[in-house]
């Protein structure tokens, strides 16, 4: 399902999509259980979370210094840094490098920043063929769909969708070719993409971390596609955001211990690779040119604001893996490159709160995202800041503003508030006594359409509290 329309419509459509619901139900419990098992195996995990938070906070507080140190180290190792204030700057930088080396095809490792800047569409429009090599990204490219999850992009697809897309795209397949097993799909993709790796002129990857001390970019994959992308073509381009920089190799190791465990529940991803500059004298392989396209695109504007904490994010996806809202609607409904709680904070920054006002409201504020975040980002609090900005700018729907006004009238008059709520609770209790729940209530149609409303049992909290104190003679 692709998002069109607003968030509410997308969400309703997602909840009615049987295929999507099947895919979510199948995948979600794994993420939660595997992360917990990995955390339980490492007694130092909580200490690492605190250290991870400190490393990122320290880096952001000195971000100008670490960016300059990083850029100097990249240049010292024979690489080139392209500073890009906007998405358009970054697209032009990539295109400029591709044109200079006469590139016709580029292979790509998975990169959310390249999604953020719409790189594939842009390159294709300029006669350069991008080929996604991460298995999940590859099928989405065949289907012309957006990722629905930041580390498991094809999270929303069931196996029959994979087979259908491969048959449609790989026209050389014999009609009797079977895709009975997941393995058959993987083998087909491996064969097809191996040809692409060997033929590509340029390889584009993202970066999980940039190391100021050494000028290295670090990528983490399980497939090995990112490594083939950055080893075989003549030119390697790293497309990444300024918040990925960390001071030293040791800081990176601390964050790596958090990343895989939080993301997939692995102790360590299969391939964690540190790349530093271009091929050296005597090196038998590796790229002849190494470029870093360093993107700001609104990130520097978060420094010093209430949203600064979001710059700590290491893109592990634990927040969306544990979010009840993401779990009900999947990623596409958010209509943004970054879904789930982290996306609900980041998207208004990238697109403007006017365009993304619904997203910070797509939360029950249960706090699970914050409790699993490896760098302790207070995600519910950041969403609350967006809600405040939304309200200040009068972007909230009229009915909701009116409702809040009514509530505020009572909330400012405690005696009246207690009287009104007590009256309502007692009345609902009497009316609902026979069934214990309501199938329909005035003004609560949106609730009762999909589930019953429980009837209150007994008095309000305040009334019960007062009665007990009286009983105890206080």
């Amino acid at each position: 399902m692709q998002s069109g329309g607003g968030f509410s419509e997308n969400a309703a459509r997602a909840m009615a999509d049987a295929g999507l619901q099947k895919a979510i139900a199948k995948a979600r419990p794994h993420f939660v259980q595997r992360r917990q098992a990995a955390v339980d195996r490492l007694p130092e995990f909580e200490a690492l979370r605190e250290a991870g938070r400190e490393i990122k906070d320290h880096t952001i507080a000195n971000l100008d210094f670490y960016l300059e140190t990083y850029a100097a180290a990249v240049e010292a190792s024979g690489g080139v840094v392209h500073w890009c204030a906007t998405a358009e700057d970054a697209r032009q930088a990539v295109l400029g490098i591709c044109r200079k080396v006469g590139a016709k095809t580029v292979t790509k490792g998975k990169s959310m920043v390249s999604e953020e800047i719409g790189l594939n569409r842009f390159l294709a429009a300029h006669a350069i063929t991008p080929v996604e090599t991460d298995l999940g990204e590859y099928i989405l490219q065949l289907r012309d769909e957006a990722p629905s999850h930041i580390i498991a992009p094809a999270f929303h697809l069931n196996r029959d969708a994979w087979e259908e897309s491969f048959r449609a795209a790989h026209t050389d397949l014999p009609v009797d070719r079977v895709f009975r097993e997941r393995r058959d799909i993987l083998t087909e993709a491996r064969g097809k993409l191996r040809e692409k790796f060997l033929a590509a002129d340029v390889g584009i990857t993202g970066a999980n971390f940039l190391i100021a001390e050494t000028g290295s970019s670090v990528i983490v994959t399980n497939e090995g596609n990112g490594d083939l992308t950055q080893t075989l073509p003549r030119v390697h381009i790293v497309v990444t955001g300024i918040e990925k920089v960390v001071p030293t190799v040791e800081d990176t190791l601390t964050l790596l211990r958090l990343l895989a465990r939080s993301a997939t529940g692995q102790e360590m991803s299969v391939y964690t690779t540190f790349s530093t500059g271009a091929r050296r004298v005597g090196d038998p392989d590796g790229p002849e040119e190494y470029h870093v396209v360093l993107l700001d695109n609104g990130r520097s504007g978060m420094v010093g604001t209430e949203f600064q904490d979001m710059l700590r994010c290491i893109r592990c996806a634990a927040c969306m893996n544990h979010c009840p809202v993401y779990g009900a609607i999947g990623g596409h409904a958010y209509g943004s490159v970054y879904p789930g709680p982290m996306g609900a904070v980041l998207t208004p920054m990238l697109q403007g709160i006017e365009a993304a006002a619904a997203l910070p409201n797509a939360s029950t504020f249960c706090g699970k995202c914050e409790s699993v975040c490896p760098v302790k980002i207070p995600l519910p609090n950041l969403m609350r800041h967006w809600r405040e900005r939304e309200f200040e700018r009068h972007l909230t729907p009229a009915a909701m503003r009116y409702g809040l006004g009514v509530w505020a009238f009572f909330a400012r008059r405690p005696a009246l508030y207690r009287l009104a709520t007590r009256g309502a609770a007692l009345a609902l209790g009497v009316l609902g006594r026979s069934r214990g729940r309501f199938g329909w209530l005035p003004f609560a149609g949106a609730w009762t359409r999909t589930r019953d409303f429980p009837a209150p049992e007994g008095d309000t909290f305040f009334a019960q509290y007062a009665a007990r104190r009286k009983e105890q003679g206080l």
Partner: protein
Amino acid sequence: MSREAILGAVRRGLKRGALSEGERAMLAARVARRIVPARGQLELAGRVALFAEYVEREFGTVAQVAGLGDVAGAIADYLKGQGLPPALAVSPHPLLLGLNFGGLAVRFGTALPSDAVCLTEAFAGIAETGTLMLPSGPMRPTSNNLLPDNALVLVRAERILASYEDAFDLLRAEGAMPRNVMLITGPSRSADIEQTLELGAHGPRRLHVLIVHGAA
């Protein structure tokens, strides 16, 4: 110019100008905190055992041999067991160049896409998670870690260290950061299809680690 615009915006957010020389020197002298998991911090035999346990947990296989003289035999046995022909590409590392490969057909150099098997030498093993460290260089082509379906990696038992930090300390002692440093934990895999694990994505389908004792 974007560079100055970005740095300027960051400094405005931080409500300060560029840092002074003294402040920059202090940051450059910062030493990162190390929180190294206790579980890898064992004596040699314990580290080797934990390393082997984690390699196998991550779907790799392990063979331990008593010395460099037993490597060729262990490789021949492995290839036979997997139903593979007795032929392999070998990274041109001095330790590997000096081995007697017996009846195995060996080609030293950079792996080609047609090579089914490749033997490399790991700079270090890391007990903490069963991870191999493979830096690039004239003796260690990066392609050899990635292209063949079957990756055979020799690691000397004495080089199996407690943590990633220990491995990077050893690497730093040898000089500048190599162009490419791979930390490899198990064979290539993907869970992109229905979030179910399948081995053998773009890198090797099989990872076989030969731990060589008594070859410091």
